[in-house]
């Protein structure tokens, strides 16, 4: 999967083409509003991530569009439960429509839940901002990576730092490069690595937690012992040591490492939850029916815990970013520019802490990291509502 892909004009075209699908369906169903929204959504996501963004967005937007007409035409008070009890004699097309409508309704409910919590929505907007900054920013602001010698030096200055000016809104860094361009280009790798680490943590924790609880016995004990062991090692100092040991040429490797150190807490929670779920009838029934471990985990356990797991993943992402920036901050890992963490490290070692002109080199990445982490934390509030069936049912 090419996560590094940048927004491109081709993407814009793909997005526009994808957007036609929900638009046409919506116009045929005489619901222009969701159609136009769907078109815009497809356009943007296709623009941002090409086919990878465009195609899934077709599915989502069509679902939303269909959900409007579907419920409008039939029973407006139709509940989800009733939807799933439709008899099996429907045609394939009807089934697809029904499923799509179900999905669309979930999306609408979720997006309303998302907006309801103000703080959470603010966090969501923050994340969207960083998404836009990292995906579209590079199109507008090219990366300024070359050191600038005389051409940007102020008269008589012996360093290349400069405070904010009209030409360079965030000023120039120690090599005379545009700080704004480093902010725009310097977050992507950091965010991607953090997200990767969060996902890896979650996957490991969920699988191990479920396995430990469902299989039990010796395996359970061993997994618990390992979890205990990892929890006892001081994480950050250990990372510092590991950083010296392994050369992180591949950022993904760093993500794996962070994931390997971070899973025990979530794993214990999943294990406890699964243990308690195991007692419940439907899981026992599934077990008795010999439906297999993956089935039980995916179908019975996960949906119950999804809220907890997703929120935990967000915190893992946050923890991973804390660790990565911290390691770079202390100068303990080799790094590549542009990167927010590297800006902080270089700013510190180049004396930006004590020079008013250079302060921007430190402040800009510091604020970027703080805002991003803040958005993550706030966003969990909305997630709670989105995933909380009780709250959502109230819609």
């Amino acid at each position, binding site marked *: 999967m090419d996560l590094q892909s940048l927004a491109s004009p081709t993407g814009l075209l793909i997005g526009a083409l994808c957007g036609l699908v929900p638009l046409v369906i919506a116009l045929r169903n005489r619901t222009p509003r969701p159609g136009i929204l769907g078109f815009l959504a497809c356009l943007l996501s296709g623009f941002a991530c090409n086919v990878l963004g465009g195609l899934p967005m077709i599915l989502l937007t069509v679902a939303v569009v269909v959900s409007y007409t579907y419920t409008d035409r039939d029973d407006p008070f139709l509940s989800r439960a009733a939807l799933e009890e439709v008899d099996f004699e429907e045609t394939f097309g009807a089934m697809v429509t029904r499923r799509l409508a179900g999905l669309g309704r979930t999306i609408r409910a979720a997006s309303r839940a998302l907006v309801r919590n103000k703080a959470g929505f603010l966090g969501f907007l923050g994340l969207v901002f960083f998404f836009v900054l990292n995906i579209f920013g590079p199109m507008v602001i090219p990366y300024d990576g070359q050191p600038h010698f005389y051409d940007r030096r102020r008269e008589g*200055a012996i360093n290349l730092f400069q405070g904010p000016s009209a030409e360079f809104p965030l000023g120039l860094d120690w090599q005379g490069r545009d700080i704004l361009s480093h902010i725009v280009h310097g977050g992507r790798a950091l965010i991607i690595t953090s997200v990767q680490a969060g996902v890896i943590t979650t996957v490991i924790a969920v699988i191990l937690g479920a396995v430990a609880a469902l299989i039990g016995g010796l395996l359970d004990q061993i997994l618990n012992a390992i979890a205990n062991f990892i929890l006892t090692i001081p994480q950050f100092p250990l990372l510092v040591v590991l950083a010296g040991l392994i050369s992180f040429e591949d950022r993904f490797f760093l993500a794996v490492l962070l994931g390997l150190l971070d899973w025990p807490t979530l794993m214990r929670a999943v294990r406890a939850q699964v243990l308690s779920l195991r007692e419940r009838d439907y899981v026992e029934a599934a077990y008795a029916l010999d439906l297999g471990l993956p089935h039980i985990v995916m179908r019975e356990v996960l949906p119950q815990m999804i809220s907890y797991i997703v929120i935990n993943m967000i915190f893992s992402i946050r923890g991973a970013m804390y660790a990565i920036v911290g390691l770079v901050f202390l100068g303990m890992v080799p790094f590549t520019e542009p990167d927010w963490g590297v800006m902080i490290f270089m700013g510190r070692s180049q004396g930006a802490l004590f020079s008013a002109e250079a302060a921007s080199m430190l402040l800009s990445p510091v604020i970027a990291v703080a805002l991003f982490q803040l958005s993550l934390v706030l966003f969990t509030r909305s997630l709670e509502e989105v995933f909380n069936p009780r709250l959502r049912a109230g819609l």
Partner: protein
Amino acid sequence: MCLHHRVLEGKMRKLTVLILLALLLTSVAPVIGQAGQAPAGTFYGAWPYFLPPDGHLNSFATGGPSGIGLYYRWVELPMAYFLRAQGEYEPWLAESWEFEGDEAFVVHLRQDAKWSDGNPITADDLVGTYAIGRILLWSDFNYVGEVEKVDDYTVRFHLANPSLLARHLILRTTIRSMAVYGDLAQKAMEVYASGANKDSESWLALQTEIKEFRPEVVVASGPFIYGLEDIGDSFMTLHWQPNSIFSETVKFGEVKIWYGETEAVTPLVLDGKVSYATHGFPPATDQAMMDAGLRIIRGPYGYGAAVYINHDKYPFSRPEVRQAMAMAIDRAESAFLTKGLSALPVQYMAGMADSLVELWLSEEDRAALNTYPYDPAAAEQLLLSIGFTRDANGKWLDDNGDPVVGEYIFQAEWADYGAAAQNAVEQLNDFGFQITGRAVQWQQLDEDLKAGNFTLTVRSWGAASPFPSDQFNQVLRTWNYPGLGEGQKGINFPMEFEWRGEQIDFGKLIADAGAGLDPEAQRPFVAKAAAIYNDLLPVIPLSEALANNPLNENLVSGAPADDDPIWLNGGGSVDNYITYLVMNGILTPGPEA
């Protein structure tokens, strides 16, 4: 049980020492009364010294007085001070010295020098110091054999390997008091006399004993002294003492040393609380210091950044390619980006500091050196002449038609060298090479460099030593196969080759450049080695680092003008110019001290 016993024993010993100390103090007290009064004024230094328990008073071990940077030599004096500009030594604890042919080096100590406890500084102290130094494998013993006391104030060092370096090392050694280290020195002499070598058990055991020795007091030969109670959390204090040869000349009664590395010291310097600091400050801080009205001393270090080349990698193994690279990189730009005003572009490209080139090479020899001025066109011609071509995109292809590619690794944590490397990558790529830069932890880079796992990297050409042979060896021995361990190749620059129709043994040539006791005899070897280096460029020197030491003229007065030759001594811990200026009373308390 055993532990308890040891603790008790330790306490007893402490008690005895304390009682002895008390007796000593009461007997010395009247002497202090008679001697001169401590001058007024405080000197404010800065250094990341060691705090107890890591900090202690054993100057043979890390964490002792020798761990307080340049200020150590204000407590324990060396025999002489080396004046780099003149290449001469000013006698301090030694009165005079001479070589006895190729056999020995004789030192005559001053007869009026006293320790802070009132005892005279004698040959026994010097011999004892070297007895312990031998156990600690001091590099002096690469040149020195037996150390013999001739009379109370004369010591003869028998030379195992006659070299001017022996004189340099011996004279700059600090003498330690045998009132403190006498027992250890006695044991050291016994171990050495027993025929033990550095791998013998008795030798190693004594080594450990020396390192673990924790004296209760410092016995100083310099005008300043301190005790454990003077080492504080954010500064330590040295007090004036009357018995030193410099006690009457120094103009400061107290030295306060702020604790900290660069980042911790910077606000203190900018607040005007530091008289002088030797930390390496980044250019932004440099500017802030200048804006704050501080005077910045920019003494040369004698080394600087160079492009290191792995001579196993084609086409970089071709001298023409290295010469072209030397002309394709604008060294003025490189120097400015490396350290702002605190780096100078290298002029002579001869493998040693430009100041040494002027000292050692005749005008004629100097004129013969290629200074590789920035000239991409000439570089282009040179490459074309050996069959290189440019492809459609203007990128260079070597004579086999392969693109000139390579990875340039640099130290992630060393901002200055990192900048030098990044700039070199830019400039070489502008010229049409395809180089990629990669940051590596510096420890890892050292390993890679030794093992030869690199194509291009950045490290120092030259060394702080005033001897050309040392400067050459920094590259050709320290980071090249002759000086490295088994299986390690380093830059793998061949040391035996044909040059201008003559078979050269480069290692021997450099050794000859440092051998013997007559500088005049060394000169031709130095000149030839420089010429070869200049032509073959084992590495490509870029800039010479300068210190940027802030001097606060509100706190100190009397510092000489910027063109005074004393500043050439540099801001290191040994032979620091401030040490010279303070000891000789040239530096005095400023208006606010």
